[in-house]
């Protein structure tokens, strides 16, 4: 089953390689689950990648390995030329839950990564930057508010700021907006695109929505389950910046159909 290793994209992002995964595999000792097998990938600078696949096919596992949160059982991962051997400062992560801490104000939550990395003095110095970030996501005036008073979407926007405050080179996103309603989600996705384009950040997004994957990414990775592997790389050559009305174009429809066909075959096998 080394087909996955041979998959090469037709086109897609053209920057220099940022992330390199070679023949990464993961077997969980508990239950002898082969969550991932033989995943080889190259993510290029400034590219937006989306991963899609049925539940349990190893998307979160792949993300955790890339983030250095769990070691791979096989293979190697390098980021910006250095092997990933644990959590790294050049990685920003976001999960499905905003996870803001209720005893900290919004701005204190945003500053938390700096406080942990460089201490409270550095966090104080980074305050103007945190204010700026909050302003760019429309949270001006909510700096000193406690998270209990923020809506789900506002909390998720604050957690984007928290991810960005350390200026990470890559963003790893595990279904970051799936707890939001559709309108908020569309808005946040456009916000995410703007942020990534402005910073030339490389993004890796796990999602369950084909439309979300297509509208956001330069390349969609379709994963197959048992064992988890990357079955197909679908380059998305819609022009940037993407807008929500692109979903009505035939090109968009064709891409969605292509990915859906690929998924359906695997999901019910």
């Amino acid at each position, binding site marked *: 089953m080394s087909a996955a290793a041979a998959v090469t994209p037709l086109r897609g992002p053209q920057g220099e390689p940022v992330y390199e995964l070679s023949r990464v595999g993961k077997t969980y000792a508990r239950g002898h689950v082969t969550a991932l097998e033989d995943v080889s990938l190259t993510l290029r600078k400034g590219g937006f990648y989306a991963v899609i696949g049925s539940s349990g096919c190893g998307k979160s596992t792949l993300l955790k390995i890339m*983030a250095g*949160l769990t070691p791979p059982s096989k293979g190697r991962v390098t980021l910006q030329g250095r092997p990933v051997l*644990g*959590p*790294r*400062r050049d*990685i920003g*992560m976001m*999960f*499905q*839950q905003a*996870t803001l*801490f*209720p*005893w900290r104000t919004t701005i204190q939550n945003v500053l*938390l*990564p700096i*406080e*942990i*990395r460089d201490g409270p003095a550095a966090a104080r110095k980074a305050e103007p930057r945190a204010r700026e970030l909050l302003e760019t996501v429309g949270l001006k005036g909510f700096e000193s508010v*406690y998270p*209990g008073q923020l809506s789900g979407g506002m909390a998720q926007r604050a957690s984007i700021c928290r991810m960005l405050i350390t200026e990470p080179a890559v963003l790893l996103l595990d279904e970051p907006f799936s707890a939001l309603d559709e309108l908020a989600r569309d808005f946040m996705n456009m916000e995410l695109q703007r942020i990534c384009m402005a910073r030339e950040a490389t993004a890796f997004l796990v999602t369950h929505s084909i439309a979300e994957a297509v509208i956001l990414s330069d390349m969609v990775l379709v994963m197959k389950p048992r064992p988890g592997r990357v079955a197909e790389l679908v380059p998305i050559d819609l022009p940037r910046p993407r807008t929500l009305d692109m979903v009505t174009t035939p090109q968009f429809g064709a891409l969605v159909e292509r990915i859906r066909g690929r998924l359906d075959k695997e999901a019910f096998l």
Partner: protein
Amino acid sequence: MSDVRANEAAGYDGGDTVWTEKTSWLDSVPRSVSMLFVAAVFIGVWELVTSLGLVSPIILPTPMETFRDILFVGENLISGGYMLQALWITLLEVVYGFALAIAIGFSLGVLVGETSFGEKAVMPYLVAIDTMPKVAFAPLFVAWLGFDIESKVALAAFIATFPIIVGTAAGLHAADHNARMLFKTMGASRWQTLVKLKLPTGLPQIFTGLKIGSVGVMAGAITGEFLGGGKGFGELIRVAASQLNTPRVFSLIIYLSVVGLALFMLVAWAQRRVVFWRKEQVGAATEH
């Protein structure tokens, strides 16, 4: 349109309707009134039982007698009499006992909740000791520490320590998977994770432990005084009881409850200040 017709058909004339949910009249009485009502019923039954001579006055004094004695004890306390000195001793035992319980309980709680050594090697012993009737250790503390306040402080602390350990250890496990993962991605050290994540997350449980402990510390101090003598408030109760002065016993107990309640309220107040992001009911001492 059709809605209006339906309403008309049902005899609705289009005017404002004000409606409220039906509740039992008993539930709509204000809190203070209902509390007074319960107290009045209680005292009324008490009065009836004693004035009809159903119970010997040695066993149960009349409410009036008890009330007079409450005033008498209050006067003695205010004028700085011997009862105030006794109360002061008991207060010292309670304060020292509680401080000791907090220090030991919190430290052991962190050891048990944070290290796998503590969880594997220490927790089983703590559970074993916790299941024992801790009051039974009182004679030992008296034998070791004598008849002064030390033995009472020790018993009070001994009883109050366990809920604090349990509360702290449970609290340290309260942080959810997402939060831990987030701290991991930020490269937080173990110490940072403890101080900036696990402790703040566990504060509600820690305070629950403190509240249960605050009740236990009073019980410990008084039990210590019953069994180990000394000059505290418990001794006053014991002496009054041995003289069959039941009104005195009752009024002393009432003053003691006031002290206990004050300590509990103090902890509850501290909880509201510290854990400001969570609104909780004051009377949640027994939620364990």
